[in-house]
């Protein structure tokens, strides 16, 4: 089962290694991991997508909490009513002859942008939830995906729920 864990950490060198080492030494999986500073530059937010049963996820959260430089560890709710997740992809697709129009049509349906054009390729930028990303890629794949870069998932809770530093 897929789980998304949001980890607020001190923005210090070595913390990302600590998190990654924890996953590898304890045999946990990382499906994706993104990290960047929060609005307060002295802290970073890591979003980890992982999988495992409830016992494993509980251990992951506890072990992450045990690291001295982690401030908060929250397993994000799976329901879309409570949490929004997004992923950014940049995708370079072969675009020749009739395919050029087909790609434009697909991009339009998904609200994706063409951010670079050459005589033989289009580069598409798209952000959406996992399901949309997977569907878009399934449509682009037969047309010839030359290169794909995915950001990994970021996620935020809805409305009045915050994962912030307590001051």
């Amino acid at each position: 089962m897929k789980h998304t864990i949001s980890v607020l950490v001190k923005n210090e060198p070595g913390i990302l290694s600590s998190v990654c080492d924890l996953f590898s030494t304890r045999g946990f999986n990382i499906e994706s991991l993104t990290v960047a500073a929060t609005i307060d530059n002295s802290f970073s937010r890591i979003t980890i997508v992982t999988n495992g049963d409830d016992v494993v996820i509980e251990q992951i959260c506890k072990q992450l909490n045990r690291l001295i430089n982690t401030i908060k560890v929250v397993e994000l709710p799976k329901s879309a009513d409570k949490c929004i997740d997004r992923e950014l992809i940049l995708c370079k697709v072969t675009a020749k002859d009739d395919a050029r129009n087909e790609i434009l049509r697909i991009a339009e349906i998904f609200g994706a942008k063409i951010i670079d054009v050459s005589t033989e390729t289009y580069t598409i930028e798209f952000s959406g939830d996992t399901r949309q990303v997977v569907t878009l890629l399934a449509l682009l794949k037969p047309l010839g995906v030359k290169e794909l870069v995915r950001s990994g998932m970021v996620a935020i809770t809805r409305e009045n729920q915050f994962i912030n530093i307590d001051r």
Partner: protein
Amino acid sequence: MTAEQITKPDKMTGAAMFLECLKKEGVDEIFGYPGGAILHIYDELYKCKDIKHYLVRHEQAAVHAAEGYARVTGKAGVVLVTSGPGATNAVTGIANAYYDSYPLVVFTGQVDSKLIGNDAFQEADIVGITRTCCKHNYLVKNLSDLPRVIKEAFHIAQTGKPGPVVVSLPKDVLTSKMSFEYPERINLPGYNPNYEGHPIQCRRALKLLCEAQRPVIISGGGVIHSEAWLELQDLAKKLNIPVATTLMGIGTFPQDNELSLGMLGMHGNYWANLAVSNCDVLFAVGTRFNDRITGCLKRFCKDAKVIHVDIDPCSISKNVHVDIPIVGNAKNVLKVVLNEYSTGEYKYDNQMRNMWIKQIDSWKSNKPVYAVPEGILHPQTVISHIYQKTKNMKTVIATEVGQHQMWTAQLYKFNRPRQLITSGGLGTMGFGFPAAIGAQIADKDALVFNIAGDGSIQMNIQEIMTCVDYKIPVKIAVINNGYLGMVRQWQEKLFDKHYSQTPITSPDYVKLADAYGILGLRITEENQIDEALDKAIAYDGPVIMDFVVEPFEMVYPWVLAGKPINEIILSNNSDDEGKGE
């Protein structure tokens, strides 16, 4: 002179500041080994009167000695080594302290910060290397961070679940200058160990313990860390509950008490393992349920409700399913439980308890059987004699790892905590002797024995010279059977007696003692043991005793790895295999 000049404190080098920080933390004895990157601190030490430095012969021994020191005092042991090989040699010691949760602060030199990452001479990424085997670590990049980092390091090492903290000190940080100010407060927003157990959970636990018909307490190393042994003993006696200890918990419950079951686990007492296997409520305090305790996890306490007290939430429900988790310091939790009990609202059926204790007593005839006929010096006999000789003295016993360690745990009837110093989690051969040195330094009046195997002692035997230098009168008892005994035992039972690389030779320990200028004794017969021990104890200085013992003795009881702990082998004779009830 202007007012400003008078109030402005003098600037200090990082190296001098380092020693000031140690003084602020109350450190007066440290263990270490000098080298290029750390020379500036050693130059300051040369002038320093308040901190005594013990020069070892190998950095690993410095860390083990500091752990021995920590185990006796309960305070962080401090280590100072150089960069590169000095730091990597310290890693085993750091890992050992991490697995047994003893507080250390290990300072390692580092190359100039401008050279870090350039594969400079004696450079090692010790922060990267130790990341998964220490509680926390730091690379100090600016001198302005040094006082804060040292304060945090001691705080982290000694609070919560204790453990080693590593601080890497680049050379340029030690040579640069600044005015010194030690921080008053700690600001670690991500580090708030929970000391107070939840009162509702404590009440639920007490209720369950009172309702239990066949309760057992397991007392682990956490009871030593939190100094909760009196509370634990009080609770056990008030509720009439038998107590088994883990290897790390030995000494937390006096073995001469009738509720004592002794040690449980792979080489634990038959009755302790059976009591735990048959209990209906298990009250586990300060143990992380290592596989050496639980055996086959699926069959461990499968019909019991489990209450687990631990300061580390990660330990709870990691291995064993827990019905009532209590995250907190064992002493505080037990105090709350005892207070609650003193209200008089909780009652238990003492008749039922006595029936349960009687049932456990009926298992007590199942004792391990010596494999080899009498007349030959048995290792067990040696350890029993050491116990008889020293039981009324203020004795600390440090062991290495292997058969002699298990026999010591079984046969030496430890009655107080911090009396047995042994490597539990990591199982480090070569730990005991340097740890004994640290223990002796921590408690100069104590009689410190290092019970060793002939394999283990040779892993850090160079430290005899450290004992000589500082007149540290550790008594080494080598249980010399010519084998790596525990591995040989596994080979005998599980690998068709293929003694692959387990026969091991030793130097002549008596001549070796002579070369080092200490007392050496060889004992080959049972009737020589007492005289040798008397001589060793009376001798004012380190002693090495070479007990030449029967090589094929086995450690029983024995639960094979992966088996449930009620499937117990008691002797070479397969008829003696415990059935488990």
